[in-house]
């Protein structure tokens, strides 16, 4: 395998007529990452991933997988596996035959790994059933099995938990964690934030075809700033204090009357508590809270361009 990070994308662009589906995306997935590729539906995740797998020709920019361009040769996919959107199989063949076909197209002794991968995704008992009769969740699992046939060093999974029930989603997360613990680099796209928050250590957030954020998940939380929640005996007076106090920003009230704000620093919180007391708004609760990924996500993906 040639040198280079598992995924290196530079200036990746795809245009369909006047529509720019992916707009100058730069992305680097390092070895060992469990990398979340986040974005709302239609943001350009799947189109990006199709380009990464060589299924779509970029209008501009380039993709390198372990240093090789999938547009130039299929050998760039050596050690790479995964699926985009729902994994698809021949419905008129059983699962084992589908895997035998794919193993034949993989070479490299993939055929001998079929029992093992069926066992990993717990489909051994249904291996002789035609895939046409499989549930959505079973097909997702078969998609993972088909990927594992290639002994991947990089696994690219596009919305693997979509359409699964809660138990199926949990099992999928556990499976991805297990594969990552075995040293497989994972690029996982999702619009399901909980899925990424629980599994990934690094993320990129794509919005309208452009990368809005890329980095450590923990750093993202830090960059978004620490917010505080406030409950007092006099919400109206407290709100007046917050609105007039220049050391806090982003003041908002929730339905239960709790106020939220971003302080400039910890000393601003101390000053604020004094001002609240002076204004007759006795503090019931003044607590720091980490922003949830969901809040950050909405902030990054729903703001104006």
């Amino acid at each position, binding site marked *: 395998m040639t040198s280079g990070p598992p995924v290196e994308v530079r200036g990746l662009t795809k245009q369909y007529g006047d529509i720019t589906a992916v707009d100058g995306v730069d992305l680097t997935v390092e070895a060992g990452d469990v990398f979340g590729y986040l974005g709302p539906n239609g943001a350009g995740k799947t189109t990006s991933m199709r380009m990464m797998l060589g*299924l779509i020709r970029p209008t501009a920019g380039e993709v390198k997988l372990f240093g090789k361009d999938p547009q130039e040769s299929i050998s760039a996919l050596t050690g790479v596996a995964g*699926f985009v959107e729902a*994994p698809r*199989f021949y419905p008129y063949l059983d699962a084992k035959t589908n895997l035998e076909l794919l193993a034949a197209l993989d*070479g490299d002794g993939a055929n001998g790994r079929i029992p093992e991968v069926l066992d990993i995704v717990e489909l051994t008992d249904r291996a002789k059933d035609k895939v046409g009769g499989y549930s959505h969740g079973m097909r997702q699992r078969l998609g993972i099995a088909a990927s594992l046939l290639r002994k991947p060093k990089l696994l690219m999974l596009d919305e693997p938990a979509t359409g699964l029930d809660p138990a199926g989603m949990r099992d999928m997360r556990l499976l991805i964690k297990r594969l990552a613990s075995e040293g497989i680099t994972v690029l996982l796209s999702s619009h399901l934030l909980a899925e990424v928050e629980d599994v990934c250590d690094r993320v990129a957030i794509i919005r309208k075809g452009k990368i809005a954020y890329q980095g450590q998940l923990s750093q993202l939380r830090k960059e978004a700033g620490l917010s505080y929640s406030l409950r007092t005996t006099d919400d109206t007076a407290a709100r007046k204090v917050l609105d007039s106090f220049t050391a806090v920003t982003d003041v908002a009230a929730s339905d239960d009357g709790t106020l939220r704000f971003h302080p400039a620093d910890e000393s601003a919180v101390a000053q604020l508590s004094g001002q609240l007391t002076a204004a007759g708004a006795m503090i019931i609760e003044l607590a720091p809270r980490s922003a949830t990924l969901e809040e950050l996500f909405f902030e990054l993906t729903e703001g104006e361009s």
Partner: protein
Amino acid sequence: MKSPSTFTVYRWELRKLRAQKRTYLGIGAAILVPMAFTIAVALRPGEPRDVPFGRYIHQTGLAIPLVMLLFGSIWFFPLITALVAGDIVANEDQNGTMKTILTRSVERTQVFFGKVLAAFTYAFIAVVISAGFALVAGLFVSGYNPLTSLSGQVVSANEGLSLVGASVAVYMIPILAIASIALMLSTVTRNSAAAVVGTLMFSLILQLVVIIPGLGGLKPYLLSTQFNAWQGLLRTPIDWDPIIRAAWVSSAYAIPALLIALVVFLRRDVTGG
């Protein structure tokens, strides 16, 4: 790492064909139509005297597959051929499996040529089965008797049998061109029904072209005309001209069709599935 060969793709394309109903629909038709034709011949007292070998169908069973080749060229064999060749690429689009096979370890060219070979193999098998059943049924109805060639010479039954076999082989030349056109339509339209119907319409339109006033001169260069090239084998001496013409005229249809299909297949964005 040992990469899979184009033969591996071809072998699996045949395996997929064996698992699909439309394959058996075509093969079933390839068996039933000559049987029905032979039964009709046996039950009707007259014979189709206006087509070559028509007048001999009650004299020797060897004439039956030859008449079958003539009638089959209008739509029957193009349809059977297009049934698989028109589906073999589009089927991947409709199943959403194009992305599945193109993210393994085979190049797009290998996938394409594996499919071309499989479509050609199916067309060959279907025509041979159809001619074979027409021959067996013909021998049962009219017997294994000498055959009168188009030059009026009587050839022995054994020699006649060899000529029937050779005729089927020559018949494959335009059939493979039809398969190539169906494959192109399958690749370009990504729709099986459109490719099958399109191929059939193309085949029928070519046969109508010659009746348009002023276009009769095109007849030697139409693909439909090449379906009669095998008749050169049944003249004494053998007339190779129509066979040679069938080879290059059919190539002139097949090669551009395959090139277009290949370029489209290599350059296409796989967005479905």
